[in-house]
């Protein structure tokens, strides 16, 4: 009769147990950052594979997003005779919202899924067990450098995305639609605030770097070590990352506008 009650109880206990394990692993991984100090090479190698390899897709996407912003912004602003402000619209949209969010979504699809599959396959082929038996802690050796590389790479990728986007907006707005070039830049300079806009964007990008990379690393480390398990965990990685990024974006924006 109280079956459903027991069921809810059991699944909440399961949930919190899993959540607790995940948090413990997260803390252990962060503590593992210390073991990387004498070995920066490990981080650099990972920054190459998560950061540099995501660069092309980020740059191309940033350019297109900037061009679309230029078009849409111009069409709206021209009705009010305010097309001089196009630079501000493009820059603020990118720096505050689209830069961090779109970059994080692309990163989750490009780098997150690859990270997850790599770690999941290392688990499936007993490489993680092998490391443990060689007295090498996989949390320090595998998880920590990847997480740290992701956290460092994300703000850099976001910066590139936004910068390229500003040029995309310039190309459409100034070169194609005839907005004054001087106004595009000077209005942007005058209206984009360092503390309110740039810093907030950087904070967001760090937060997204942590959650997307962590989800990928955790899903890989805890997946069921079979081909099916790895494939499911890959899907979960992308879906969870996307949802978390969008939800977190709302939360952070609400806090920042406060």
């Amino acid at each position: 009769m109280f079956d459903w009650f027991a069921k809810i109880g059991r699944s909440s206990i399961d949930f919190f147990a899993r959540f607790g394990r995940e948090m413990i692993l997260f803390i252990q991984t962060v503590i593992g950052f210390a073991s990387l100090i004498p070995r920066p090479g490990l981080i650099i190698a990972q920054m190459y594979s998560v950061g540099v390899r995501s660069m092309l897709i980020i740059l191309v996407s940033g350019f297109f997003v900037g061009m679309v912003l230029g078009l849409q912004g111009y069409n709206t602003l021209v009705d009010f005779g305010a097309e001089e402000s196009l630079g501000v619209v493009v820059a603020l949209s990118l720096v505050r919202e689209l830069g961090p969010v779109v970059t994080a979504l692309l990163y989750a699809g490009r780098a997150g899924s690859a990270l997850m599959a790599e770690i999941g396959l290392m688990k499936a082929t007993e490489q993680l067990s092998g490391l443990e038996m060689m007295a090498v802690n996989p949390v320090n050796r595998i998880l920590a450098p990847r997480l740290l590389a992701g956290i460092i790479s994300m703000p850099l990728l976001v910066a590139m995305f936004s910068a390229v986007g500003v040029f995309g907006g310039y190309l459409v707005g100034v070169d194609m639609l005839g907005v004054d070039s001087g106004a595009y830049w000077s209005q942007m300079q005058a209206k984009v605030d360092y503390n309110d806009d740039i810093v907030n964007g950087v904070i967001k990008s760090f937060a997204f770097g942590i959650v997307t990379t962590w989800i990928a690393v955790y899903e890989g480390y805890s997946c069921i070590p079979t081909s099916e398990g790895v494939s499911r965990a890959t899907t979960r990685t992308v879906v969870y990352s996307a949802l978390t990024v969008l939800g977190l974006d709302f939360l952070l924006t609400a806090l920042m506008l406060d």
Partner: protein
Amino acid sequence: MPDNEDNLVKIRGLHFARGSSKIFTGVDIDIPGGKITAIMGPSGTGKTTLLKLIGGQIKPQQGTIHFHGENIPSMRTRKLYEVRKKMGMLFQSGALLTDMSVYDNIAFPLREHTQLPEVMIRDLVIMKLQAVGLRGARHLMPSELSGGMARRAALARAIALDPEMILYDEPFTGQDPISMGVLVQLIRSMNKALGLTSVIVSHDIEETMAIADKVYIISQGKVVGHGSPDEIDKSDSPWINQFVHGEADGPVPFHYQAVPYKEDLLAQ
């Protein structure tokens, strides 16, 4: 050489279950230092699991596993990693790191745990590779190795740090008769020359019995027989006989637990 009383590993009252399936129900095993101990048993009885328990990768629900007098399941992580430096383990699948060459795989534990200069590491790696006959294959990636070669490369890696004890999970499977002979020779000579303690899990009864000092046979969660290879060979226990002589009929079932065959076929 340590005498028979000096057991490097002492397992007492070991109980281990995965979910509802009981894998060990009260296992006692002594692994004497400096000797070769073989652990045999039908597929799926938990031999690999036993090695993982000894390596501290999983914890038993009950019972103790003493290594040098210290209980592995109750060790703290840091201590456990110290102890593992004294153990080498050869995985059934090899478990080579797939993103580095054979050479780097074998150099890996040396680079992680020693401050040796690269020239010295190079010499050590080449010596280990020579021992397993893969000196010429050092530039290959793990994906370019055959199963047998991968196993041998993994063996070279397991002995890289000169451990006190090596756990071999099926070292002979997938080896041709020549490399099998070489491996048997290698295990024996490491054991004699370096006083290494070896634990071999294997189905290859003949080869294993030929080099083992002590044999354990486990089946259905229990030790069903142990002794020197001679004693095992002469034993009249039906469990041992069936396994050692490979008879299909006997107390050890070939089939995984199931409903009767006929019932299953007729079931709709």
